[in-house]
């Protein structure tokens, strides 16, 4: 027989607390570490697989776990996260950093991908979600403000031509940021597009071009 809704949701992790309430003997909160443990167990018990979104998504890696409270991680932990991120960056084959800015704009506009209503986890099924958080092209007024404005990104960094003497280090920095945003900021709010395979090398090149190509509307 089906367990009742009311009782079925008394998870094992909460049993102690429930008993606590029954006895009314513990009006005080458990210590923070115990609450951390209970919260982790609660989260684990509350989610289920749906479509491509499986429960393994809530198994945190170091970078996620260390950035999951109001307190930032210690300098030591932050350094480790950033170092590991940089070490894992895969550079573009042939040293070719830039693709087609038009394709980049399309990707930047596309907010799709990786939800349980999306059919595939393939990078080609994903958008870059960029305008959700950033101003990029000045023509697009429907942009978010969670991230900094990227308008004139290349121009502001002195990139006037593809062979600008200043270009190479900026290409490298930007590639790293897109590939794994934790390379420079352990608790960056930006997804790790390359690290998690959200975008492939070709797509990353297109976004690079959108930001850095002097012909891109970003730099006009």
């Amino acid at each position: 027989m089906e367990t009742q809704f009311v009782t079925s949701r008394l998870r094992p992790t909460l049993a102690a607390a429930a008993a606590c309430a029954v006895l009314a003997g513990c009006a005080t909160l458990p210590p923070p570490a115990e609450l951390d443990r209970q919260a982790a167990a609660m989260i684990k018990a509350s989610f289920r697989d749906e479509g491509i979104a499986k429960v393994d998504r809530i198994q945190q890696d170091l970078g996620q776990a260390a950035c999951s409270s109001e307190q930032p991680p210690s300098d030591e932990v932050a350094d480790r996260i950033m170092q590991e991120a940089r070490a894992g960056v895969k550079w573009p084959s042939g040293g070719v950093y830039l693709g087609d800015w038009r394709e980049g704009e399309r990707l930047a506009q596309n907010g799709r991908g990786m939800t349980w209503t999306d059919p595939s986890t393939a990078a080609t099924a994903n958008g870059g979600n960029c305008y959700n958080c950033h101003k990029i092209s000045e023509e697009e007024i429907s942009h978010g403000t969670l991230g900094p404005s990227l308008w004139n990104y290349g121009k502001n960094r002195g990139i006037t031509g593809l062979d600008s003497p200043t270009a190479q280090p900026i290409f490298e920095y930007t590639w790293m940021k897109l590939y794994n945003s934790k390379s420079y900021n352990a608790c960056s709010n930006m997804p790790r597009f390359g690290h998690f395979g959200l975008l492939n090398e070709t797509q990353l090149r297109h976004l690079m071009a959108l930001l850095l190509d002097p012909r891109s509307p970003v730099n006009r």
Partner: protein
Amino acid sequence: MTRRTIAALAGVLGGGLAGILAGAMAGGLALLGTGAAWAQTKSAADGIAEYRKMLEDGNPADLFEARGEALWKRARGPKNATLERCDLGKGPGVVKGAFVELPRFFADTQRVQDLESRLVTCMETLQGFDGAAIARTPFGRDEQNNVTALATWVAAESRGLRFNLPTGNAEERRFYELGKRAFFFRGGPYDFSCASCHGEEGKRIRMQDLPLLTKNPGDGVGFAAWPAYRVSNGQMWSMQLRLNDCFRQQRFPFPGFGSDVTIALGSYMGVNAKGAQSIAPAIKR
């Protein structure tokens, strides 16, 4: 309008009006691209404010509110009983003011419950429905649809009141603490937590203003605005569905209906919203 935007439109709208929904799903595609300039950004914001204002007079949430009231008073379920003796926290049958004090601890179930999970408990105990089966039912269907309508009516009965969740019970304080941890919990392929979007003041995603939910974000904002009618898909969304879709867009797996994480987040946001005036049921994009 730019040529690029027109091309995008043509793509999205290949199916004619069907494209409205398809377009909403495709999301990122912005249908608005104008010549430029800061002044236009301002007028766009003004224009959207004007649009929202025009929709307020005649919120289809009223239809769900009316249906919820009828459902509350109608004898239904295996026990052929009404919900008029349902205890939403202020005593059996007391509806007014209940919404702005939920989630709260209930002695009979020995747990903290939000509005929707409490309604399911009442449907189970008073009317004889199978609560687990309702919890498994997709949003917008069958009894799940009725839960949303009931929640809409119960919320409407507290319109204009200020949030004031009880915190006297240790379980309520514990759920607040668990909710806070869930709020900052990062995961999924995008590394998002609730705080990624709702942890800073004055931010927006695309054109949408994002309320800061770690404190009282103001009257009729955030927790004080749901249930709400969603214009984009013509659906009535309870807070459970609001949270569910937040997790979807967070790229998380699927949170169970009435699961502890959803209730703990309700406790966290609800306590933080103390003093905020409820406008629920609201109308949203």
